[in-house]
């Protein structure tokens, strides 16, 4: 397995991935680096990748209307960044910014979507990894929406 394939396979998101899938995914992968404060992507831009965070943390930010930008989630190494590449019209819904220097694997969205169309077993494997992530984030968003600490109790 080449370097990228090994890095992909060692990332917690892809734990236990079958060898043929690793190679397919590694074919869409490249190493990327962002300095602290750099945007990884901006709201409204094309969601043409998703990221496996390896080092450094990232903040997800959204505009609160008139007010300043609000961070609603931070992500640590070992987590993934971005799901909009899966959902048409493939645009980012928020900004992502590097808090520290971030090293990550970027997976090209068009390349991955094409491979998933061609190989539904790969697509299904990816879905089984993504859906629990999405469900956990939806649960977290619900709790944040409830503003549990802000309530007068």
């Amino acid at each position, binding site marked *: 397995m080449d370097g990228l394939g090994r890095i992909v396979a060692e990332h917690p998101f892809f734990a236990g991935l079958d060898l043929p899938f690793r190679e397919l995914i590694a074919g869409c992968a490249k190493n990327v680096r962002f300095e602290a404060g750099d945007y990884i992507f901006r709201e409204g831009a094309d969601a043409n990748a998703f990221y496996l965070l390896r080092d450094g943390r990232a903040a997800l930010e959204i505009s609160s209307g008139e007010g300043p930008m*609000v961070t609603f989630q*931070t992500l640590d190494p070992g987590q993934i960044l971005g799901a909009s590449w899966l959902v048409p019209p493939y645009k980012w819904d928020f900004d992502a910014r590097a808090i520290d220097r971030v090293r990550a694997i970027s997976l090209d969205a068009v390349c991955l979507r094409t491979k998933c169309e061609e190989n539904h077993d790969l697509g299904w494997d990816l879905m089984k990894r993504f859906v629990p992530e999405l469900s956990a984030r939806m649960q977290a968003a619900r*709790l944040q929406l409830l503003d549990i*600490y802000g309530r007068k*109790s």
Partner: protein
Amino acid sequence: MDANPNAATAVSSAAMADAMLPRRFHVARKRNETADTLTFDLAPADTSDGFSFAPGQFNMLYLFGLGEVPISISGDAEQTDRLVHTVRLVGSVTDGFADLKRGDTIGVRGPYGAGWPMDECNGGDVLVIAGGLGLAPLRPAMYHLFNHRDHYRRVSILYGARSPADIVYHDEIQRWRQQLDINVEVTVDHADLRWHGNVGVITPLVAKAEFDPANTTALVCGPGIMMRFVAATLERRGLASDRIYVSLERNMRCAIAHCGHCQLGPHFVCKDGPVLSHDRVRDILQIAQV
């Protein structure tokens, strides 16, 4: 044998009257924690007798002319010359705390209730998990852990707040974080760009905390929903429900298991609690008011 069948009632009425009598304390110090939360140091007004309590217990604080509220003790149980309470201003009585000045007098009844199971924590890992003002009743437990650090294995403190401005005991948390033998993680629900710490709910911190499920006690206090999700995450990690302790800050009145105001099923929160093991209160945590 006593011939008077009412004697027992008469005795318990006298004992009850005694238990209902507040002691007078002076405000020795008052400081702002957040926009709506204040911490008070109280010193006994009438005697130099100290005030003993166990971590997790609470007092009934009486503001003359306004009324009485249950408030957890948030200071160090080994410092008996001073009582520390942190109060969030949420309604008719607690709002009155904003007007208290240094030297003012308030009434104190207590301490009441069952506290945190510090003995049970001995020899194992300890997780202290607080949400919002839930850090106040847990702070005495933390002082206990710090004062007797060699009795415990890994100690982790996980704290969730609404935003950076809502973090209570801010400077103290900074000091805890510098201790090398304690893991302290703080997260907020949302923040502006000046905050460089964690943002997000507390459950992912619980999911990745380091502990040995076979030998860990978790002490949890916060809003009911938070305690429910935290307990579920701990159970998924293999921690038994009877090793997870939660503090139920239920509305109460007499604090001596007499009026029934705080009764939840078989438990009087004021006497059997406020700290109860999760296996005893799992169903109760689903009820809206908790």
